[in-house]
Every structure is written in C-alpha cells, then in structure tokens.
C-alpha cells in the first residue's frame, strides 16, 4: 500500500493512465538516486543495493519518499536475495502490499516493473516463457520474428527482474517450468536452431514471486521450487498509529474521488482499525485471545470498509459515517458468506465491546443487532 500519493502523470493519447508503473510514478526519485549513487552496483542492476534500499524505505534528506510501511530489515533481506542466485518469494496474507513491494523492488533493481506474469488457474507456459505469432510462423517458420517473447524470456535476455504474481494459483506443472530458468539460468527454445535455441540469462535477471498464505494447500509448491526461492513473509502493519494514518489517508482519498466531502471521522476510524486488528490477530486490547476470522482482515480491507462507511453516511444522511454504518459494512467484509465468521463477529460485538470506554465503542455495541443473520 502506498504511503505517498504521487500525482498521476504521463498522459497517453490525451487520457490519464489510471495507475502508471512505479518506475514512471517515481521517475524523478529514481533518476536522482541514480545520479547520486556512489555504491557498487551488482552486475546488471540499475542501482546499488543501498540506493535501491533508500528508494523503498525512503530518505527524506534526498527527497525520497517512504513507499513501503514495514520492517526495514525485510527490504534488506529482499534486496540481498535478489542479488544472490535465489529467487525471492514474498508470502503473506492478502492485502499486505506484497505486489506493491514486488513492483517497487523490480523498479529499483531493473528500472522496469512491467515484466509481470499474473498467475491463475488458466496460466499456461506460453504466457510465462514464449509463444508464436501464428501468421508469421506459417509464413516464415520459427524464427526470431515469429517468436512472441513472454516476460520470463524477456527478463532473461534483457537481464531484468521478472515478477510472478500469485504463483501458487497456477497448477503445479506450470509452476515447475520455472525450475530450470531459476537453477540453470537458461531457457531452451527447441523450435529454433543454432545459437537462438538457448537463451542464457544475463546479469540482473531474477524472479520475484508472490504467494498468498490463504491459498496454501490449493496448489502447494514443490519442494524443488521452494528450495530455489528465499521466502520472505510480509506481515500486516504492526503499529496501530501507522495503520490508522494509512487507512485515514487512503479512505479519505477514495471518498473524495467518490464525491463525498465529509472526511471520515477519526474516532470511527479508530474503532474500525482496532476491530480489524483484533479480529486479525485474535487478541483483544485487554489481552484475551479469540479465534481469528477466516476472512481476510487486511489494511486494504479496512480501507475499503472505511470507504463504504463514508459512502453510507454521506449518501443516506449527508454526514460522515458512524459506528452503525460500520456494523452493516463489517458484515460484508468480515463475514462474507461464512456463517462461522459471522458468529465470531457477533460474539466479538456482543462480548468484547462492553468493557471499553468511548462513545463510538458504545455506539458499535448498541448497533450490534444490525448484523444480519
């Protein structure tokens, strides 16, 4: 999740790009870091390790914004993994900004975050390695012109970082096509002959994969593939104030975009963020342990609930959202279609609110009956 909100730029064909890639959004900062970079660059890298680190964790003295909220040591480990011969696997709950981190890392290391494979049940090897332009293939046979390069092939040939999003959503056999590029650093194209038949990875090539811990067991990774990655777990934001500030900023921006002029109320957001954090960690502020919800209670979800609360309040009553709106919106996020989660949420609203002071907590408790079901 982005802390800074850079203005959109780089209009193409008169229209504004909704979300330009990180290397475009932060082009100034990257250029500044590149110009002042005195550190030694690993072979094929656009920046030195220290400059890449400053790009992500921020360096106010150089006018570089902090782009990722999390332990700085995580960034160190991720960058060092990318400089070694192992790939980097970012795992964690959904909504913990794994994809953003992978984008920032790729932009810092290669200056290009667009070599991306989106994993899914329908992902095939073609979309990862290469495929053919069939008209040219029929006309000219297999050659460099008829070859359509997919991200992995391009990353290897150009010496860039390839991003593989949601790798565990791919079938196991598709995942395994990453094995030889990662260990032997070579990709064979048997249809071509001569030197074109083997693409050797150039310096700077590596892979950042992301995987969702909620998908564990759906498509478990093979041990062979696991061994070729260094695992880094990305955790939800540990600090309450940081998370609250982030939710406030992001939800405020979303609401403004939706035409709501009332800013979200801070006391309602505090209740919301506390609720999310307690249901996520399974521990109340008083120290009681509870079962965690099986639904995702990420910061991103908190932002979307805060957005929904604001919309409800504004379009129903022309005011900022209240704790009652929160109850209605929580059901959709926290419980979804899972009756167990709904029961857990109800139990939380019934038993874990009464001992707290604060008007919004009381309002939330009073509104608990609005929970559907």
């Amino acid at each position, binding site marked *: 999740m982005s802390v800074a909100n850079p203005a959109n730029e780089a209009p193409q064909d008169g229209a504004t790009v909704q979300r330009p890639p990180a290397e475009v959004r932060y082009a100034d900062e990257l250029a500044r870091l590149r110009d002042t970079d005195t550190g030694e660059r690993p072979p094929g890298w656009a920046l030195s390790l220290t400059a890449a680190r400053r790009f992500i964790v921020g360096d106010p003295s150089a006018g570089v914004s902090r782009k990722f909220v999390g*332990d700085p040591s995580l960034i160190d480990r991720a960058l*060092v993994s990318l400089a070694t011969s192992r790939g980097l696997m970012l795992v964690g709950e959904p909504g913990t900004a794994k994809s953003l981190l992978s984008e920032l890392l790729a932009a810092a290391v290669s200056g290009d975050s667009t070599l991306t494979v989106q994993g899914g049940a329908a992902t095939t090897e073609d979309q990862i390695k290469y495929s053919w332009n069939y008209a040219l293939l029929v006309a000219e046979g297999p050659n460099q012109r008829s070859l359509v390069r997919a991200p992995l092939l391009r990353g290897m040939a150009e010496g860039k970082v390839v991003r593989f999003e949601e790798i565990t959503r791919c079938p196991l056999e598709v995942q395994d096509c990453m094995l030889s590029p990662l260990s032997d650093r070579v990709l064979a194209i048997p249809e071509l002959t001569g030197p074109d038949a083997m693409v050797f990875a150039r310096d700077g090539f590596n892979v950042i994969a992301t995987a969702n811990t909620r998908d564990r067991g759906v498509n478990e990774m093979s041990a062979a593939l696991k061994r070729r990655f260094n695992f880094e777990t990305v955790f939800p934001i540990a600090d309450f104030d940081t998370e609250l500030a982030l939710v406030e900023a992001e939800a405020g921006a979303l609401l403004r975009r939706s035409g709501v002029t009332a800013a979200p109320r801070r006391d309602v957001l505090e209740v919301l963020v506390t609720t999310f954090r307690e249901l996520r960690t399974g521990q109340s502020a008083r120290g009681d342990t509870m079962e965690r919800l099986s639904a995702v209670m990420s910061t991103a979800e908190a932002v979307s609930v805060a957005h929904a609360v604001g919309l409800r309040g504004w379009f129903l009553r022309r005011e900022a959202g209240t704790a009652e709106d929160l109850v209605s919106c929580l059901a959709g996020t926290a419980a979804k279609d899972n009756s167990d989660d709904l029961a857990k949420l109800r139990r939380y609203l019934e038993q874990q609110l009464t001992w707290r002071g604060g008007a919004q907590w009381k309002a939330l408790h009073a509104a608990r009956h609005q929970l559907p079901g």
Partner: protein
Amino acid sequence: MTTTFIGVRHHSPACARLVADTIRALRPAHVLVEGPADMNDRVGELLLGHDLPVAVFSSYRDDDRQSGSWAPFCAYSPEWVALQEGHRAGARVRFIDLPSWDPALAERQNRYADAEQRYAEVVDRLCATFAVDNVDALWDHLFEIPPADGLAERLAAYFDLLRGETPVSDGDTGREAYMARWIRAAAADAGERPVVVVTGGFHRPALIRLTAGAAEDVGWPDVPALPEGAVGGSYLVPYSFRRLDAFDGYQSGMPSPEYYQQLWENGPRHAADQLVTAVVGRLRDRKQQASTSDLIAASASAAGLALVRGHQHPGRTDILDGLAGALVHDALDEPLPWATRGRLRAGTHPVVVEMVAALSGSRVGRLHPSTPLPPLVHDADADLEREGLNGDRTVTLALTTDDGLRRSRLLHRLRVLRIPGFTRRHGPRTGVDPVLDEHWDITDHEHRLVALIEAGAYGATLEEAAAAALAERIRDADVAALADALFDAALCGTVRLSGQVLRDLDAAVGGAADLGALGRLLAVVLTLWRHDRLLGTAGSEPLGAVITAAQRRALWLAEGVRGATIPAEPARIDAVVAVRDTMVHAGRRLGLDPLIPLEVMRRVAADVDAPPDLRGAAFGFAWAADAATADPETTGSPPDAVDAGGAGPADEAGGIGNADPADDPGVVGGVEAAGGAGGVDHAGGVHGAVRAVRGAAAPATVGDWLAGLFAVAREEVLHAPRVLDVLDDLVSGMGEAEFLIALPALRQAFTYFPPRERETVAGHLLARRGIGGPGRALLRPPAVDPVLIAAAKELEARVDAVLIREGLLA
C-alpha cells in the same frame, strides 16, 4: 581534578571495552558505578572470582509491599568491568545509586533494564532515521559492529540526543540527584586525581549538568536506611543467561547473551562464525534440515546484508536474517523475533526458536565457594531446626492445628522451591476434598544445600522465595497448571500476590482456550475463595480477581463452541455449572453484572450450531436465573403452565439450582429486566421449558441436551412436573430404533440426579400412569438369577481371551 563520565548501555560489550580502556589509561582515584549503594561495604564479595553471570539480589518487605529485584552482571557488563578494572587499578570502587528498595526503583525487577525503554518515543524516531527495525539493531549498527574509534564521542552524542529534552519521571530525577552527590564528594576527595563515573547513558547528560561547577566538599552521602518496620537486604546469587535474555525474561537489557559473550571474548568476526556454528549444531541435534548449500546461502546473504547495512563484519541481525532466509522455506505465522523485540510469541517458526535459543546460550553462573551463603540457606536451616523437621523422618501434620499448619506451610514452601528431600505422601489435593492431615517423608538430601543456594535467588526467606517461585510458575502456566499453582500458593500460605502476578493471572485466564479446563479452574478457585478457612484463602482478593477473569473468559468460550452434533462433554457442562455457582455465591461480592452471563446463555441456548449439551445447560442457566427472580404475575407463564401437582416456579425465588440461598441471597436479582429484553424467544418459566424440551427432542441429541439441563437446573426440573410429562410423552413416542439411539445419552443425563431425586421422578411417572407405590421399585431392576450372571461373565471372559489371543484386542 577531572571527572570522566562514561554513559553505557547495560550489558554492552563495546561499552565494557571502553570502560576498561578508560580506567586502565586514567588510573583514577575513584570509580563510581551505577548500582545499589547498600552493597558498598561488601564490594569485596563481588571480586571473589565467580563464574558469571551472577546478580545482586535485593529483597524488601514492609506492611504495604513486597518486592525483589536483581542487578545482573555478566563478563561483558560495563558495571562489572568497572568493578574489576577499578579494583585492579587501585581505585576506590563504589556503587552510587539508591538501594533497590527505594520507591524510585520499586516497579523494577531488573536494575539494569534499558532506561530509554521507558522513553520509547525518541528511540522510535532514531530507528526511523536510521531505517532499522528496533533499538537492538540500532545499537549494534552504531556501536557494537563499527570499529572502536571515537566510540566515547559517539556514545555521548547518542545519549545526549536520546535524553534531549525528554521529561523524566520523579523516580529517575531522585536517583540522578543522589548519584550526583556521590560524584561531587568523590571529585572533592580525589583532589587532582581523576574520577571515572560509569552509569546508564541516559543519566549521563543529567549527571554532568548536576555536577558542573559545584566544587565545595559536601562529604559522602549516606546510604538510606531501611524504613521503620521494613525488612530487606542485598546479597549475591547465581544468575543465568536464560534470565538475562530479552527474548525470555522481563525487563531485560540486551537480547542473545551468548552472542555478546562471544563478541566480548573474540570480536565480531569470530562471534558471527560461532553463532552460525551454534545454530546449525542445534538444528542438526534436533534433526532439523540444515544443508551445506543452505549454509552457503546463509553466509552469502549475511555478507550481503552487512554490505547493505554498512557493517564491516556481519552483525547479529545480519546473520540471523541470513540464516532465516536460507533455512525457512515456509510462510511464517509470527514475525521474526529480532525484528519485533520482546518475548518469543507462540507460533514462532521452530527453526527460528532454535536460532534464538542458540544465541541465548545456557550458561549458568556459580558463586565462589567463599561467598557468604544467601540468607535463604540460614533461614531455611533455622526454620527446620525450630520446627524440629531436621534429619530423616516421616511426619504427620494435622492442618487444623496452628502448629501443624505452620509446619505444613514450611514444608510446602521447600517443595515449591524444589528443594530435594521433602515429599508429601498424603494430603489435600484440591480445596474441595475434606482431607485434614498430611504425611511427609523428609530426608537430609545431599543436594539440599546446592538447591537452597540456587533458590536463594528468589528471596531471603522461604516465604518470599516460594512466593517469587510461584509467581514465575504462574507467568508460564496454562489454565490447567494455573489451578495447581494457585492451590500450591494456598498451601504455602501465600495469600498476597503482587500486581504483576495478578496481571499474569489475568493474561493466562484471558488466553485460555479450553472451556472444560477453565471450568475446573473456576470451580476450584471458587471453592477456595468461598470455603477455605483451613488454608486461609476464603475471600482472598487475588482469588476474587481470578474468579472474575475466569467467569468472563468462560462466557466468551461458551459462546464460541461450535458443532450441533458433537457428543456431550461433562467438563463443558461443569463449566456452566461453575459460572452459575460463581454468580450465585460470588456475584454480588465481586460486583459481577448478572445480566451479562444471562444474555450470553440465552444466545447459546438459542444457537442451533452450539452443541446440544451446552445448549441444554445454557437453557437451564437462564431458566434457573428467571426462576430465582420470578414473580408469578410477571413470568408470563400461561395458567396451564403451572401444574397443580407441583410447586410453581415462584417457589424457587432466592436460589438457583442447588445453590445455597443463604450465601448470597438475591444475587441474580435484576435479571427480570433482561427477561423482558430477551423477547418472546425466551418465554420464561415452565412454559418456556416445555417448549425448549420439545424443540430439543431429536433422538440423537435429546439426551445430551437434557444432561446439560439437569446439571444446571435440576431443582427446576423436579418442581416442574409438566416438563417431566412432556419428556415422558417424547420418550414413550419414540420407536424402538430411536429409543436405542437416545438411550445411552438419556442414561447419562439422569445420572445428574441423585438416587433420591430419581426416585421422585420415577414416582411421578408411576402416578401419571395411575400406578401407586414408591418409585423405588421402578429404579431397581428385578432380581436376576446369580447363576445366569456368573455364566454371562464367564462367557465374556472367554470371548475376551480369544480376542486377545488372536491379537484383535489389546
């Protein structure tokens, strides 16, 4: 006259080295060290040549509070090095801080915990500036790993920044003023010779400020005397790396003592190698995989991380990060502990746990043989002598006599401290059983002295030490162990528990996951709190706090049990009974809100996903509570609900179930309002019960449901013949197959009635069918020919023998 102030972080090898170098270079007249001034007469004891770590333990007791605190020393403690080097350089070495019992230090268990942790905001800002995870990483980055050039200036700059304009607590201000008096006196005494002052870096700026300019000789300050009526003292005890480690203990200073020991002895490069060796050795010992290629990857990552972070050699976190990256091939459930600080959390990856343990080390200190024995040894000897419990013997103690109780407590305290040679053969096991005497085997065990010296770290008297040991046990206990620990506390006569222990108790109860175990805890503690005049725990405040917490937690857990088809569990039902008893017997005295449990129980009773036994019990709870406050006019029971043959629910007012109404009359008073709020679903009284019984009538679950009901609301059922009628109709209406399904659980349910009440039920059933006579006949099966029974038994034995022979039965 020059005074050199060295601000240190406690347990920092870099600071220790600076202290040693400074003292060697200056050869000062006085070395002043932050530490308990009441130890000054006995500094010699510290110089005897102990195996480190050791600690100065200070105990204190007066009418209001009781505390114990430690000032631990290891080889790389700057304070320790100052003592040793100062002595070697011929300086006069003194401690200059207030004694540990002073109110300024009252809440501290470890004198050498980081002061800046109390002022966390500045530290957070610094960590953000240097982009490191926490203060430990920051410290290594700034001071432990870089070369020592200009260390003193860097430390001074760091602590000046840290102290800055931060307002400090009154306690710290008082300590600083006291330390400044020692420094002024030493400076005046030293004349032209140098003075070295070694204190926590956080205090350094203030001490410089306070001692600047003032040169007049004010004389040495007095060591504060213990307040009137208070008992206390300081003495040396062995300590351990485990207790020193911030990942394990409370209020500790730096983490990973074994790593810093290596750093102190051999420098960063060797410490790094040693660390990797220790981790891999440990992992392989535990059959965890750590291949050569993993190690290569770990070293490469550690070197890379050191490079990124600008370290000349890989530091502690570089290596740990490198190892974690190479050895952990899964998603983590908990963040890496060195990124967060504090104690290890449950769910930490096992490889990470081993890594942390390897860095912690297992060193245990040992005192030099000529160290004066800790007072506990003398106290224990004197107590045993006085009570005539020396030598090998077997004693029987009557707990009802003062004499017996006093001796029993003495023996239990020794047992709790794990002093060998004191074994109890017989005695009360819980507060519930009516056992009034104890048998003990006492032997003069060869390890008694050693064990007493070790236990000396817990306190100066057996009473104190046992209380401290129990406090430690409570801190680590789960709910099942908690009941034992509390009972042990009762046996030891430890009625007062400190605020910290109460918080630990609260946390342990708040983390309980098993309703049955929690119910047992609640039942035991409630009994101790209500009745126990023998051990003197009746009405004790800590137990009251436990009851409050356990009741709250039991309600939380009760509402979370899922599974409409899971079988009955007596422990779960008993937990509801315990909650009910709590409300009846302790509700008013502990100020528990009667509405909260009632609402929870109503929700559980109505929850189709809850197990039937729990629903039945919850229904019984609500019924009993309603009955207790019911007024025939307002219960809302239609007239037909009140059976002419039985007493109406109104007769039950004042008590619930088998509660003793005299104990806490009317405690559930006020629930009436809730009854109204509950809506039509909770139509109270017999009518509601009839409907509920009909609703629970599925053959597979009716027995479990009734078991819950009978356990909690036996009396109500007996006095509501209409409920029995409905039940009778339901059972009579079952087909044979259904009846066979329902039978085992029904049997179990009716065991909640004692025989006399079962007879009442049977009599009612007979009367319903127009058959006269006592119900006893119905309960007693017709006599069977004993020969037949013998034949059946023989047949069973033969079948068993065959099955066992063929290996079909274990």
